[in-house]
């Protein structure tokens, strides 16, 4: 064996922060959920919703004296994929969603389709135009065509800022809340306070380690998204970093508040879910908040994760500047600072 290792005496804030970092990095599950999971999720969802050439619309033609001519006419439109079926089979296929429209065997034909489905309505227009044209109708003019599929408008582009926001919320709340409650439950908080550890250092170490973890956590997801999925960053990198920091701080504040009183993991888990589930649903992680009715918008827009997601999307996808994101940033700052102040007031040390 070598000489016994010399142990340096470091400042308490550094020691407390190191302890947090060591605890987290020695927990393989934590490393997975913080660093790997968001990337895996982005990759899977990005793959599932990747942009691809438009699929032709499947339609059925009921077998009859005109079916061959109609099939030929419909086949000329590249946006349609017609097939011939017996009447009962055709309607079954429509009911099951295998085809989006059925052309009857009558002359003139009638179209069976579901007008609440956009694909069905599109098929009706295309089928009707193709059949009318083959019956002799001529186009009054041939329109020009411009196809737009620019990066930044894909689902994965919408998704990545939302995932980043969700991750900042999850790790901020769990990272702080869980470790504080474990420490309280095991009398460690009390013991630290009994030894001359400053309360500000104990909580400061939680925040410091949280912000240090932000760098690899947000960095990994953003680098992956930008270089492998081609998600754009149109605004300033510094602003993006600033928004992430503010978001991490705001959710650390909420985490501190949630963990200010509970003595047990069960207790804090319930509270965490109470705080986070509404934001998972309403804050526009996976789909736009505009889908919610107008009456709910004041609630939806007041949520800190909505503000964070909007700000992240603004800077990444729209290239928004600091001034135009000020309302979102102010809302985040209010959430964070109010949570901190209240948490410190009601914090249970033993």
């Amino acid at each position, binding site marked *: 064996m070598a000489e016994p290792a*010399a142990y340096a005496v470091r400042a308490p804030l550094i*020691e407390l922060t190191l302890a947090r970092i060591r605890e987290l990095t020695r927990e393989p599950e934590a490393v997975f959920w913080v660093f790997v999971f968001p990337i895996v999720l982005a990759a899977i969802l990005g793959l599932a919703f990747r942009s691809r050439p438009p699929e032709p619309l499947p339609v059925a033609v009921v077998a009859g004296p005109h079916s061959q001519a109609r099939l030929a006419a419909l086949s000329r439109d590249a946006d349609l994929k017609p097939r011939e079926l017996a009447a009962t089979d055709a309607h079954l296929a429509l009911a099951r969603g295998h085809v989006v429209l059925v052309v009857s065997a009558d002359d003139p034909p009638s179209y069976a389709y579901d007008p609440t489905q956009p694909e069905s309505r599109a098929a009706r227009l295309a089928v009707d135009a193709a059949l009318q044209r083959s019956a002799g109708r001529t186009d009054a003019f041939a329109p020009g065509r411009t196809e737009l599929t620019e990066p930044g408008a894909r689902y994965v582009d919408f998704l990545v800022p939302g995932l980043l926001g969700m991750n900042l919320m999850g790790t901020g709340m769990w990272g702080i809340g869980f470790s504080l409650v474990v420490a309280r439950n095991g009398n460690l908080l009390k013991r630290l306070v*009994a030894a001359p550890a400053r309360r500000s250092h104990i909580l400061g170490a939680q925040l410091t380690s949280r912000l240090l973890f932000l760098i690899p956590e947000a960095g990994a997801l953003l680098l992956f998204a930008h270089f492998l999925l081609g998600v754009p960053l149109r605004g300033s990198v510094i602003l993006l970093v600033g928004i992430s920091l503010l978001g991490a701080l705001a959710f650390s504040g909420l985490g501190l508040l949630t963990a200010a009183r509970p003595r047990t993991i069960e207790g804090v888990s319930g509270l965490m879910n109470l705080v986070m589930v509404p934001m998972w649903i309403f804050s526009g992680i996976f789909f736009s908040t505009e889908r919610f009715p107008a009456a709910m918008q004041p609630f939806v827009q007041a949520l800190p994760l909505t503000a964070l997601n909007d700000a992240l999307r603004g800077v990444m996808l729209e290239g928004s500047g600091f001034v135009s994101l000020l309302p979102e940033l102010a809302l985040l700052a209010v959430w964070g600072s109010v949570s901190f102040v209240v948490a410190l007031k009601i914090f249970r040390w033993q």
Partner: protein
Amino acid sequence: MDHASVPDSAVWCKGLCKRYGDVVALAGLDLEVRRGECFGMLGPNGAGKTTTVEIFEGLRVPDSGDVEVLGDRWRGDGLRLRARLGIQLQETKFPEKLRVSEVVGLFRSFYPRGLAVSAMLALVALEEKAEAYVRTLSGGQKQRLSLACALVGDPELLFLDEPTTGLDPQSRRQTWEIVEGFKARGRTVLLTTHYMEEAAQLCDRVAVVDHGKVIALGTPRELIASLGAEHVVEFAVADSAAPAVTESTLRALPSVEGVESDTGNWRLRVREVHRAVPALLAALAERGAQPTHLTTHSATLEDVFMALTGRRLRDG
């Protein structure tokens, strides 16, 4: 507030009262711990020992009463006073995935002065475990780690709350050796325990605490001597013969100083076993009562507690 604080007292309190709702934890407790002594608070669970110590440690505030620790009083966060204290709580769960040396290093960082981490680990016989995760330690090793964290700031006064509860005899002796080493350097220790052996082994003076009050105070030897008899004879007789044995008969036996009975078991406090036991056996034989068991032992602090309260320490 004026009071007669003794200059060489390490801890001093008067009239401590504390209630938790309807439960009275402390009912006017007075205590003085002198510098350089090892002072024990002996009492059953719920006697108010932990509440008292946590008031001394500045972790609880008494409803009323005066407390002075190392000539100082608790105000604000009391960081300056804390730096002079070593505090071990009844149970602390240190982070499982930290190494032993890291935990001690963490606690060392809170104190303005103190021992080097490696020296501290040597003192509590954990050098071999310096790089081990807390999770891998045995109960006794965890307790010594906890002691190391209390001692690493080289405190003037060490508080130990039930330091060996739940430990095996060997770990208990190891803990005692560490405390004795600390005491040998002229430092002060205040410990609570419900093990009479521990109080007898470690403590210069012992306060017997029950229902939030000190009911006896002195050196272990003085307390045992206060029984007026150095030995205890315990016996029982078969139920059929029980009516034949009465307290007055037993009291009349030679050398017997005290008699207690508890559901058919008799306890005699006696000065000389060799005189009392033959007389006892003769008296029982005369009444046709065969003892179903009979034991004798030297009087202990447990007997002091029983003589004072009629209960055993462990009964709580």
